[in-house]
């Protein structure tokens, strides 16, 4: 059980000990919280003492009396607002000063409880406060994580976009200054590299478009009965010029009717990426087998290749954005490192699963499972 620290600020000792007694054995549980919350109660009789205590060891919750002997409750509230916004403040007030309490909530106190209160009234107030405290912590965490993820994504994206620009610009400058001589043929290799980098950039832009497409609203998705066989045939056709060039053989094994209720764009993304990778990371004269299978409760898509494969520890990272395996064999293959991260996102949208089985130098099999339960 997690204990929330509650500081009671009231000049009436009776209130403090009352709160202690009532909350001592009280716990709050909500289905969305992983564990119950209990309370540990501290007390302060003046606003000055309260601020000292908060400074030393900030509590989670403050129950604050309006009328205090020295500085007023509102000043303590101001201090908390300024320095510890995460603390949830509840005002304790007599009915006579209800107006002040309302003002306090306008100034950032979460709620107020009129005194004298019954144990039941205090408990239900604490339930509300606890829920608020939990949700507040949740949103803060999410915001923070969201920000960091975005920040990382942008910096890596900027890196991926600028690197090819810098490379091409650098080559053009070398040509401008005739650094390799006056014959154009002396620049063949440089031109070839520059063209390759431009190609890589184009791929990156296409992948980014895919990424924004799948991140668009659920509502914008065009759900329909998609014939996966057609989509697979199209994907094979799209890569076949490249496959012919590399002398890679493409085979499709499937039953006639493999329909899936989903967005055809999403299905294209999955099949295009897996099949083009299987060709791209294959050896010359290699083979690619695409298997489609429909059972009662799921569709299985299997793309196997006889390509360069990868190590076990490398497979786990591949679904992260911008991850590419760097070694001798992948050196001259361009890519954005986005493809598989996009594929994974799409599959997650459909509560599916993707697995890699790979042996370095032998080949890889990517297996996608799409459940049919809500079809």
């Amino acid at each position, binding site marked *: 059980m997690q204990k929330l620290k509650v500081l009671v600020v009231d000049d009436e000792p009776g209130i403090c000990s009352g709160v202690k007694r009532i909350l001592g054995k009280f716990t709050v549980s909500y289905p969305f919280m992983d564990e119950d919350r209990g309370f540990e109660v501290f007390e302060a009789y003046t606003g000055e003492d309260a601020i000292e205590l908060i400074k030393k060891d900030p509590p989670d919750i403050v129950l604050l009396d309006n009328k205090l002997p020295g500085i007023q409750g509102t000043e303590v509230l101001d201090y908390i607002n300024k320095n510890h916004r995460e603390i949830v403040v509840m005002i304790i007030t007599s009915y006579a000063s209800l107006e002040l309490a309302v003002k306090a909530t306008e100034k950032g106190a979460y709620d107020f409880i009129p005194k004298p209160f019954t144990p039941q009234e205090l408990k239900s107030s604490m339930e509300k406060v606890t829920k608020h405290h939990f949700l507040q912590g949740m949103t803060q965490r999410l915001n923070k994580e969201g920000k960091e993820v975005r*920040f*990382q994504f*942008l*910096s*890596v994206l*900027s*890196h991926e976009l*600028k*690197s090819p*620009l*810098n*490379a091409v*610009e*650098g*080559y053009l*400058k*070398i040509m401008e200054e005739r*650094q390799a001589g006056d014959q154009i043929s002396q620049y063949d290799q440089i031109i070839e*590299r520059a063209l390759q*980098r431009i190609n890589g950039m184009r791929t990156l832009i296409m992948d980014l478009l895919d990424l924004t497409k799948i991140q668009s609203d659920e509502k914008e998705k065009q759900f329909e009965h998609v014939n996966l066989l057609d989509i697979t045939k199209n994907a094979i056709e799209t890569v076949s010029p490249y496959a012919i060039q590399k002398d890679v053989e493409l085979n499709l094994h499937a039953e006639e009717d493999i329909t899936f209720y989903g967005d055809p764009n999403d299905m294209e993304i999955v099949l295009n990426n897996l099949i083009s990778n299987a060709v791209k990371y294959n050896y010359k004269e290699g083979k690619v087998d695409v298997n489609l299978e429909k059972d009662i409760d799921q569709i299985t898509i299997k793309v196997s290749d006889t390509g360069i494969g990868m190590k076990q520890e490398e497979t786990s990272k591949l679904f992260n954005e911008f991850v590419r395996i*760097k070694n001798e064999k992948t*050196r001259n293959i361009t890519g954005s490192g986005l493809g598989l991260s996009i594929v994974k996102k799409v599959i997650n949208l459909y509560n599916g699963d993707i697995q890699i089985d790979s042996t370095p130098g032998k080949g890889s099999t990517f297996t996608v499972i799409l459940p049919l339960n809500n079809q």
Partner: protein
Amino acid sequence: MNTNKKILVADDDVDYLFQIKLHLQNMGYEVLTVESQKEAEEVLENTKPDLAIYDLMMETEDSGFILSYKTKQKYPDVPVVIATAVASETGISFGLDTKDEKRWIKADLYLEKDIRKEQLEKEIKKLLD
């Protein structure tokens, strides 16, 4: 000219490596290029360069920082330059402005990769003198 001064360059972008090697050689330096943090560490084991230029993002997003730190540990007097294509518009500021940053990043200079080669030459000369 600065003959015999050895510069180690680590970058996973082969095109950048090719280009900077060409420029540095034209300036009269001996250039050693590697494509990863790992290879750079191997080279540092038994070679002391006169200057090192590290890309920031290689195997990990802070490979350059790690290499820089390791270089300074082994050879405190070797100047280290961190080169990156990441611009400040992404919100990262790797400028070595505060003492704190200098202490943990431990590089002597931070360079945008698209700087002109005349500028590059000037900065390197400054560090080597």
